């Protein structure tokens, strides 16, 4: 039991003043603006939006600044802020096939309709730290080339045409929402994907990695990674039709995995899915690996007892705001709890001492 304490107001107030000073750093240096964070630390903003589960670049940038760059603290701030706003509804599901692409690659097909577009990637850089104080400097302005006009089909759509990959069931069913209902098990894939989408990148990275190392291995290929902008539509009751309410950047990853077949069904590939806000490639890849591992039951695979297959373990520990809340609460005053435990230990020691004394007296 946690027994609360009171007092300490002045010390707390002074600590927060000190925090303000520490946050600002050397006052001789210019203060950093939210717009600068948005533009120049864009991937931190993307992560905070994804795990904060709120697409708003300015809010995420403000949160990063307030949190002194502690991204989990920033995610916490964003999550807390969102609870102050009413929800107007749920969007029409975004159409990732209609994405305005910024990056699109496939590790499964060398030549594919629409081509391989590297975009602004760290891939193939040499990871040499640039020590130039003005660095990293561009190697010149970006080049341009003529873009293809045609729509770029998803790789899974190409495989799906020949029935080589499992078809997704597009039936419209009520969508689970873990911001409204507590997690319950077994969890449907909709609930799992929502939990993974807002889950901690590091946790999912480690779990995804574990599947590659043999803990519920599913033989994945990066079927397609696509990053770009999609429009969001909302159905407006008053008008009787859906309208575009804005445009967001998303990262989509589809893995093509180990096939299955049976006496009646021909062998076909299976799939894992990752979707995040912004440019979060590592997170979306990890999400797709874990999504696929969690699907063992519906695909009739064996439970190998691997952590990534255990949905209760994965979903209960993926949320870094929950996790940090429980881990960090340990530092709050537990004086009363500890006093009672201290009493208990003293009593046990006393009793043991008395037993030994009486045994010695008997001998």
């Amino acid at each position, binding site marked *: 039991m946690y027994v609360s304490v009171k007092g300490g107001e002045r010390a707390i107030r002074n600590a927060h003043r000190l925090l303000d000073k520490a946050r600002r750093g050397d006052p001789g240096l210019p203060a950093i603006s939210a717009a600068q964070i948005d533009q120049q630390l864009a991937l931190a903003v993307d992560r905070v939006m994804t795990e904060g589960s709120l697409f708003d670049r300015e809010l995420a940038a403000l949160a990063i600044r307030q949190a002194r760059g502690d991204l989990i603290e920033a995610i916490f701030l964003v999550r807390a802020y969102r609870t102050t706003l*009413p929800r*107007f509804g749920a*969007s029409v599901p975004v159409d990732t096939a209609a994405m305005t692409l910024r990056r699109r690659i496939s590790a499964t097909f060398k030549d594919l309709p629409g081509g391989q577009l590297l975009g602004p990637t760290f891939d193939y850089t040499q990871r040499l730290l640039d020590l130039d104080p003005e660095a990293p400097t561009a190697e010149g302005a970006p080049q341009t080339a003529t873009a293809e006009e045609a729509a770029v089909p998803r790789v899974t759509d190409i495989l799906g045409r020949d029935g080589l990959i499992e078809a997704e069931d597009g039936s419209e069913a009520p969508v*689970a929402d873990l911001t409204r209902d507590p997690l319950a098990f077994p969890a449907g894939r909709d609930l799992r994907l929502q939990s993974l989408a807002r889950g901690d990148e590091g946790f999912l990275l480690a779990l995804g990695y574990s599947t590659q190392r043999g803990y519920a291995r599913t033989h994945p290929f990066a079927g397609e990674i696509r990053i770009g902008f999609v429009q969001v539509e909302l159905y*407006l009751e008053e*008008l*009787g039709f859906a309208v575009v309410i804005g445009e967001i950047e998303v990262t989509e990853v589809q893995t093509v995995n180990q096939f299955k077949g049976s006496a009646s069904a021909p062998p076909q590939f299976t799939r894992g899915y990752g979707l995040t806000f912004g440019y979060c490639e590592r997170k979306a890849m990890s999400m797709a690996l874990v999504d696929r591992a969690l699907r063992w039951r519906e695909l009739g695979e064996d439970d190998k007892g691997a952590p990534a297959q255990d949905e209760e373990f994965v979903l209960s520990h993926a949320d870094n705001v929950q996790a940090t809340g429980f881990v960090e609460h340990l530092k709050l005053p537990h004086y009363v709890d500890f006093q009672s435990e201290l009493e208990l230990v003293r009593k046990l020691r006393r009793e043991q001492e008395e037993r030994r004394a009486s045994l010695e007296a008997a001998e």
Partner: protein
Amino acid sequence: MTVASEERKWAMGVLACAEPEALSALWEDWPGKPAFTWLRKPESGLVMVRGRMGGEGAAFNLGEMTVTRCALQLDDGTLGQACVQGRSAAKAEVSALVDALHQRSGDREAVRREILLPLEEARAAARQALAAETAATRVEFFTMVRGDSE
């Protein structure tokens, strides 16, 4: 969907995706701002963005986005409304006003010409620039045979 609805849907989409600064600059230049009354003052809130499993399957909740909505009425009774990305009350207000004007036959053409088409063109140009830069990163991978094939 009627032609009028199609046009309204298009206009509202253009307004929602517009840069707030670009929209307010065009609105600044609009002569004779109409009088109106609020039916619903600008209110910021959230819309849960959904995705589909595998891009094409059943829906799931990805996360929320901020939006601001409002509804108003011009003096002749024309209704205008907006639900636009972000937390800008000003952008929602101008979007609803433009939506209302766009429904009035006397103003429709001018609204298209002076506000909606310039916004759409600006957005198309930005998309075009992005596509051209991205196209320059198109890669051709070649597979190489390793070892002696003899």
